[in-house]
C-alpha cells in the first residue's frame, strides 16, 4: 500500500508491503527500509530495524496519524491527494471483537453521531477492560450486541459509517 503524509510542510511518500517471511519492506521517498513489527499493547508496535528497536504508539483521526516514538510526538498529516490514505479501504464498515470478551456496556444507539475516538462499546476479557472506539467521525448504522453478551473473536459488534461531509 502507498501512503502520503505531510510533516513540517513536506510530503513523505511511503510504500509498505508485508513480505512472505513476515518482515515488512517500506520505501520511504525512494529509500528502502526493511523492518519487523510486532503489535504490542493498545495502539502499540515494537519496531525493529537493523540494530535499532523502538516502541511506537500510534492513533489516527480524520486529519492525521499521531505517533509517539523515542520520546517524541509527531503529527503526520494525511494527504488529500495521491494515495488517499485517509480512506483506508473505503472507510466505515464493521467493528469486530478482537478477542473473546463479555460486553460490559454499549454506549451508543443506532443513528448516533459519534466523534473519532469516542468509546462505543466497552468489553471485558481476562479481567481487562477493552474499549472499542470510533475510527473517525461518523454514524452508528447498526448495533449488533448487547450488554452482558459474550462475543467471539471476529464477531461483529457495530456497523459504522464514516460521515462524508
Amino acid at each position: 500500500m502507498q501512503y502520503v503524509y505531510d510533516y513540517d510542510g513536506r510530503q513523505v511518500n511511503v510504500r509498505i508491503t508485508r513480505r512472505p517471511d513476515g518482515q515488512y519492506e517500506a520505501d520511504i521517498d525512494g529509500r528502502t527500509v526493511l523492518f519487523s513489527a510486532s503489535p504490542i499493547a493498545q495502539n502499540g508496535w515494537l519496531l525493529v530495524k537493523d540494530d535499532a528497536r523502538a516502541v511506537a504508539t500510534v492513533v489516527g483521526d480524520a486529519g492525521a496519524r499521531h505517533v509517539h516514538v523515542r520520546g517524541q510526538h509527531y503529527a503526520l498529516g494525511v494527504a488529500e491527494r495521491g494515495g488517499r490514505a485517509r480512506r483506508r479501504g473505503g472507510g466505515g464498515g464493521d467493528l469486530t471483537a478482537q478477542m473473546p470478551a463479555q460486553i460490559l456496556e454499549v454506549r451508543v444507539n443506532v443513528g448516533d453521531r459519534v466523534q473519532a475516538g469516542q468509546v462505543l462499546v466497552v468489553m471485558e476479557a481476562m479481567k481487562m477492560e477493552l474499549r472499542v472506539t470510533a475510527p473517525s467521525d461518523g454514524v452508528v448504522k447498526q448495533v449488533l450486541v448487547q450488554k452482558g453478551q459474550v462475543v467471539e473473536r471476529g464477531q461483529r459488534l457495530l456497523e459504522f459509517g464514516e460521515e462524508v461531509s
Partner: protein
Amino acid sequence: MLKKCLIANRGEIAVRIMRACQELGIRTVAVYSTADRNARHVQLADEAYLIGEAPPQQSYLNSDALLSVAHQAGCDCVHPGYGFLSEREMFAQAVLDAGLVWVGPPPFAIAQMGVKTTARALMQAAGVPVVPGYQDDHATLEMLQAAAQQVGFPLMVKAAGGGGGKGIRIVREVAALRDALEGARNEAQKAFNDPRLFLERYIERGHHIEVQVLADAHGNTVHLFERECSAQRRHQKIIEETPSPLLTPALREQMGQAAVNAARAVGYVNAGTVEFIATPAGEFFFLEMNTRLQVEHPVTELVTGVDLVKLQFAIAAGEPLPFTQADLRQQGHAIECRVYAEDPRNGFLPAIGTVAHFAPPHMPNVRVDSGIQSGDSITIHYDPMIAKIIAYDSTRAGAIARMVQALRHTVILGTTTNLDFLLALLQSEAFARGEIDTTTIDAQLDTLLPPLPALDDFAILAAALHDLNGQGTASKPAVSTPHDGDPYSPWNATDSFRLGG
C-alpha cells in the same frame, strides 16, 4: 470526623480530593456537567450527580444546584477544589448556612483577601512588606511627581480605574515621568472614563515565590516553605518547583514568617498560599493571598511529606495540626510540569479534540495528577490542562533529569500538547541556572520554542503500519495483558485496567 463530602469541582483536582477522602474513609459525591458524563472524577466517586449543561455557569458555578445535591446525597461537608466557586465567600457562607462544613477558609478571610486594596492595607498593618507605592484618589500630577521620588525608580504608573494593560507606563528615570503621567492619564480617561493614577515600584527580574500555609481552628499557624512559580507565560504558571533556587535559608525563614503573619492578620484557617514577588537582591513583597488549595500543591507535599488535602479535612473537622513549625522539614527537590492541550507553535491556542491515547509515565518518584483517560475530549468549556507531572529527587539537577525522562515517557496522542515546550524549557540554560523570572519566558519565547523534531523513520513506519492494518478502528491486535508498569514494556496494555483484581 467527616463522613461524606460533596466535591464541587471536576478534573484532576476532584480526583485528587477523592483520593484523600478514600484514605480518610469519607464517602465521595461527584457532580458533573453533560460534557463530563464519562469523566474520570465521575467514575471514581461513590455517587455522582448531573448538575447541568457544559458551560460552567450552568453547572460547576451553580451554587444552588451544588447545595441541592449536597442535601440530597446527605453530605456533611463540601470541598471546592480550586477555581470555580473556591474563592467566592458567598458560596462558602451558603455552605455554612446550610449546616455543612466548608473545607476551606472562613468566608470573611476569603472576602478580605479578595479585595486587593483591603488586603494591602491589612498586610501593611501586620508588618508584611508590600510593593512600595503611592495612592491618593485626589492626587494631582504635581503630587504624583513628588511621590515618585519616594517610591523610587523604575516605577509603574497604573490606572486606578482599570486593568488589561491600559494606562500602564514603566518609568525608569525622573526625566520621563511627566510625559508618562500625562500619557497614562489621557489613556485612563479614554479607556475607563477615570483619570486617577497610582504609582507602584516596578520590580525588575522579579520571581514569583509563594508560601504554603496551614492554620487550624485552635490558633496554630505554620508555613510549609515556598514554591517557585516564576516560569510563567502571560501570567499562566507552567513549571513550579520547591525549594526555590533564588532563596537563601535566611530569606526563606523571613518569607515563611511573613506568610504566617499574613494568614494570622485575616484570621485564616485551613490551607492557603501567600504570594510574594522576590528579587535577586533579597527583597520580597506581598502580592496576594490565594484562599484555597493551589494547582501546584503537590510539590510541597513531596518535599514535606505532608498530605495537604487530608489535613484540609482534619482542620475542617476541628482537629489541631498534628505538627509544629519545628517539626517541618523541606527535604529534596520537587518539580511540577503542567501539561496542557495547547499548541506552542500556534500562539499557545488551546487545542481542543479527543485524547485518543493517554499513557502517563510510570517511574519511581514521579507522580501524575490527572483527570483524564484515553478517549476523553478536551472541550472549550474547561481548562485545557491534561495532567500535572511531578518529579522528585534529592537534588534539583536530579529532579530535572527525572522530569525530562518522565515527560519523554508521557504519551498523549490525538491532540497537540505543550510537552516538547516543557522539555525545551526544562533543558534550557536559564532553567538550569534557576534564573527564570516572571518575564523570561515571554521575552525569550522565540529561542525557547523548539523547532519541530526531524521526522524519525520509526514514526513514518508506525503511521504506515497503522494505515496498512486499518487501525484506529477496533481492528487492532488485542494482545492486552494485565500487567502494570512501564509503557514501553511489550506486556503493558496502557489503555486498559484491571477490574476487581
